[in-house]
């Protein structure tokens, strides 16, 4: 866990500095187009004279917020479907797993791009597209775990004692699958943050005037010959965030002794 900490410094630093600086991320000031750093705007301004540091901080918060939202939504949906699938078996299991197979038959990012493109750009559709791709990992994980628990003595004791399915899931199944789910969630968060930024980079995610690290990279890349820092900072922020989350995932996996997901 300690190895993840240094990677949190750059994004955390940007957010704290932006708070101290106190500029608005979306205020346009055409007199300050591509202005260099000064006492008011510590990291200068972009093509519309907006404060780069404030936008960076906003982008980091959005990236984290959307990432956690997508992981929570796909985790919830995936775990419920996975529990149902593994516990009930039969046609329900077959149906849910075929749905999962079809999602997995597409490269994840491609399906997210296609969905976001068809549904139209915007944060809601971005979250929807990433959730459609994301639930499968959780569902398959929960299913396998529950199948293994089906005949565990404490589960059979619970059934014999007359526990209802919801009670059983809450008391015995969920606590026992929590560790692998947590590991899956942290790697999922890293993927979703890259996915969000990638879709925003393509113009399919967060819409202007709101900043996303992805759209900032795209705008920065356009003018990178003259203002290279505009592409360096948002990428650095995203990279270190994802690095930190991945390291956390690695540490969790080792500490909780969860198998698999070495890639």
């Amino acid at each position, binding site marked *: 866990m300690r190895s993840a900490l240094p990677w949190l410094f750059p994004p955390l630093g940007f957010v704290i500095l932006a708070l101290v600086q106190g500029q608005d991320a979306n205020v346009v000031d055409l007199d300050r187009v591509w202005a260099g750093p000064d006492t008011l705007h510590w990291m200068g301004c972009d093509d519309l004279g907006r404060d780069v540091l404030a936008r960076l901080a906003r982008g980091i918060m959005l990236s984290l917020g959307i990432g956690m939202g997508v992981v929570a939504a796909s985790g919830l949906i995936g775990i419920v479907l996975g529990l149902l699938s593994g516990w009930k078996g039969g046609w329900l299991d077959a149906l849910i797993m075929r749905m999962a*197979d079809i999602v997995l038959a597409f490269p994840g990012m491609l399906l997210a791009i296609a969905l976001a*493109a068809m549904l139209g750009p915007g944060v809601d559709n971005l979250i929807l597209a990433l959730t459609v791709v994301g639930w499968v990992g959780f569902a398959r994980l929960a299913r396998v775990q529950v199948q293994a628990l089906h005949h565990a003595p404490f589960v059979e004791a619970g059934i014999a004692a007359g526990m209802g399915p919801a009670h059983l899931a809450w008391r015995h199944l969920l606590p026992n699958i929590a560790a692998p789910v947590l590991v899956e969630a942290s790697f999922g968060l890293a993927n979703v943050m890259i996915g969000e930024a990638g879709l925003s980079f393509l113009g399919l995610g967060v819409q202007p005037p709101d900043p996303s690290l992805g759209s900032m990279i795209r705008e920065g890349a356009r003018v990178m010959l003259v203002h290279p820092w505009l592409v360096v900072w948002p*990428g650095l922020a995203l990279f270190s965030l994802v690095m930190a989350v991945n390291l956390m995932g690695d540490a969790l996996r080792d500490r909780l002794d969860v198998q698999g997901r070495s890639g």
Partner: protein
Amino acid sequence: MGLGVSIGGMWMNVLIGRLAQLLPTLWGVVTVVFLLLHMVPGDPVEALLGESAMPADREALRQALHLDQPLWSQYQAYCLGVMHGDWGVSLIDGRPVLEHIAGRAPATMILAAAALLLAMLLALPLGYVAARHAGGKADRFAMAFALAGVSVPNFWLGPMLMLVFAVELGWFPVSGMDEPASMVLPAITLGTAMAAMLSRMMRSAWLEAMHGGSCRTARAFGASEWRLWWRDAARLAAMPVVTMLGLQLGSLLAGAVITEAVFDWPGLGLLTLEAIQRRDYPLVQGCVLVIALFYIAANLLADLLVAWLDPRVRRA
């Protein structure tokens, strides 16, 4: 039973089993791609032409997209069309979707092949060194690289490489596909994540193989370290790595969409994005379908290769 017969028999079993599993998947993929058009909020015709369009134009487009028919017959027509090689026509220039795809596919294949080659050339030594010196400095260094490789977004890596190697140093062209050297930066951009994942996978597969029974036995019989690592263990380790390779090829093709956008590389990915920007829905559907089909084929190939590598299947 003779050896030859059993090889052929097992092979056919694996092949037939996989093909049978594939059919529902293919059907599902075609269905999802068909439904994509109907996910456009409201009326796709309206979205395409805008509110001020002439009624006659609207009607013509509605007919071109078959939206004037009931959903079920649209679906049937789409499935039949896909099977017969009629993937519809582009709404922009009226050329068949498959013609557009055929024109752009080679560029993506070249880029993907270069990225794959690069990934393997990087991952093999990294994975080997990391496994051989597990826990040591070299291991930590290789795995730090691997972690950075999976964490770096390719839409940032691309511009950064461009900035350093094309603009500052002038070693490679900035974008386009005019000379062999123009392939280097896109291939690195696309291949880095795969190299990183492969080296992590190779390390763990190699270590697992070395601790397995067959390698222990071989060592007890006095096999040299070199032979152990590169023959006995490498053969076992190859199986999970090949499976992973098939799975990762999908991310590679999806990553090509972004990489091609960064470098203006005239492949399928750029075609997909152009189609999205122009709301050329049939072309978007065609691009998504063809990439998914490539992905499925790659996985099938990987599965068959694993079956061939597995002595239990070969010598059963």
